[in-house]
Structure formats: C-alpha cells, structure tokens
C-alpha cells in the first residue's frame, strides 16, 4: 500500500507549487522533484523523487560505479536508482 501522505505532498503540494509560480511569462517545465519534499532523519528537507527519473536529476553514479540518489534526494514509493 502506498503512502497517501507522500502522495499528497508530491501531487497536491507539488502541483500547487507549480501553479502558484505560474505567470504569463515562460517558465521551464517542472522537474521530477518540483515542490515535493520530505523531512529526513537529520531534520533537513529532502526532495522526493520517482527514481531513477528521466532527466538525471534524481540519481548519480558514485565512485564505485553504483547508481545512487543525489544529495538531498529521497527515492519514494519503493523506487531506486
């Protein structure tokens, strides 16, 4: 069962963030992580991401060659890099 709280943040608040920032001037299209955040264990805010994402914003390759979440990113809904 997915987490409705995360879904609320990612869809409703993420969409609201986009809509509130809209003006009639052009803006770039939203990324996979726009407006969605989650408090991490250390108290900082991490962006929720559907990993691996299609634009490289969520994951990176570490020194060992493994694909891992970028700093400040949390893979949500059981997805992974």
């Amino acid at each position, binding site marked *: 069962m997915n987490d409705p709280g995360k879904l609320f943040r990612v*869809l*409703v608040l993420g969409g609201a963030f986009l809509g509130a920032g809209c003006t009639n001037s052009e803006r770039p299209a939203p990324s996979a992580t726009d407006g969605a955040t989650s408090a991490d264990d250390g108290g900082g805010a991490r962006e929720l991401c559907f990993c691996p994402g299609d634009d490289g914003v969520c994951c990176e390759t570490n020194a060992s060659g493994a694909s891992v979440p970028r700093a400040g990113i949390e893979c949500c809904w059981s997805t992974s890099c």
Partner: protein
Amino acid sequence: MDAEQRAARIWRFRERTEHDAAALFAQLAADLLAAGAPGTLVELASRCAADERRHAALCRAIVDDLDRGLAPLAPDPQPRLGPQHTTPAHRALYASVALGCVTESLSTALLIEIRGGVDRPSVREAVDIILEDEIRHARLGWACLEHAATRGDVTWLAPSIAEMLHAALDTERLSDPDLPEEGVDLTRFGILRPHIAERVCRATIEHVIVPGLARHGIRAARG
C-alpha cells in the same frame, strides 16, 4: 479464456482509455490557451496529450504480447468532460480537476500499487513509464486549480466532485466486463484484485483528493 487473454482485454480497455485521455488533454490545452492561462500550463497540457498517445501504444504492445491479434476497441469519437456551454476558463478548470486532480491522482496511486506485483517484463516497463507521466499529469490538475484559485472563486466545482469521482471509479471498474474474481489473480499482468483497487482508491480519495480540494474551499459531498 486463460489469464493472459483476460489480461489482454483489460489492457485493451486501457488502450482506449488512453486515447480518450489524449483527446481530453488536447481539449484542455486549447481551453487553457483560450482562457489566457500561463504558457507553462498550456504546454504541460499539450505534453500530457502526447504522453497519453504514447501510453496507448504501450498498452497496445502489452495486448500484442498477451494475445496477439486482439483488435483495438473503437475510441470514443468525441470525449467530453463537464459543461460545454460555458467559458473556456470554466471548462478548463472543470477538466483540470476531473482529469488531473481526480482521475490522474487515482491512477498514480493505482499504478504504484500495480508496480509492486508485476513480473511480466513488457508490463513492468510500461507501468514504469506511465506512472512517471501520470505524476506529472496529476500535478497539472493541481497546478491549474491553484492558479485558478488565486484569480477567483473555485467553489462552484463542489457539486460536481462526486460525479467526477464516480466517473473515474466507474472507468476503473469497467476495465473488464468480467472483472477478475477474487480467485483469479492477474496481479502479475498489472491488474489489481478488485478489493485492493477499491482500498487504494478510497485511501487516495480520503487522504489526497478530498483534502487537496478542501485547501481551496471545495468540499466534496459524500457520494
């Protein structure tokens, strides 16, 4: 009819639903443009229409994988949402909420659940692609609602929310005239058992859609 053939028919229904959604998002883009909405929202709606056409092709590939030669269902020639004889701004808001806030939010939640049980490669690949797009489509709905709410009253939508929810849930239930009985498990083909789909939808309505609408004073009547 074996499990693969049954699953193929459900994916065929989804193929038609994706074609219908493509037409509806294209109409939404036109209404947003006519209403003078920000370019970002117009572009996103147009992109959603293209996504839905791609989803239809993905559904077709699954149908062919499961039951090659099964003919497509005829698409709705002119799908429409909500009142037509009103302003483009009202049509756009109605469609944004019905398509994005309701249907695509439910679809996102269902696909997350579906994703966990799929083992067929063709289905898994399609579900991953569609899920990522549906998140963006749902956000478009919530973005349009947010934008409209900063410019005027949106509570006139309240009496229509129950109808939107029923329409979205009916589409899910009608995906197969012979819905999987509890004893027939098509989970590996990307079809949830009815009681699980029902539970996911109820949780999403209660914890995502209703509170999301309530942020703007839209109180959905219990339908």
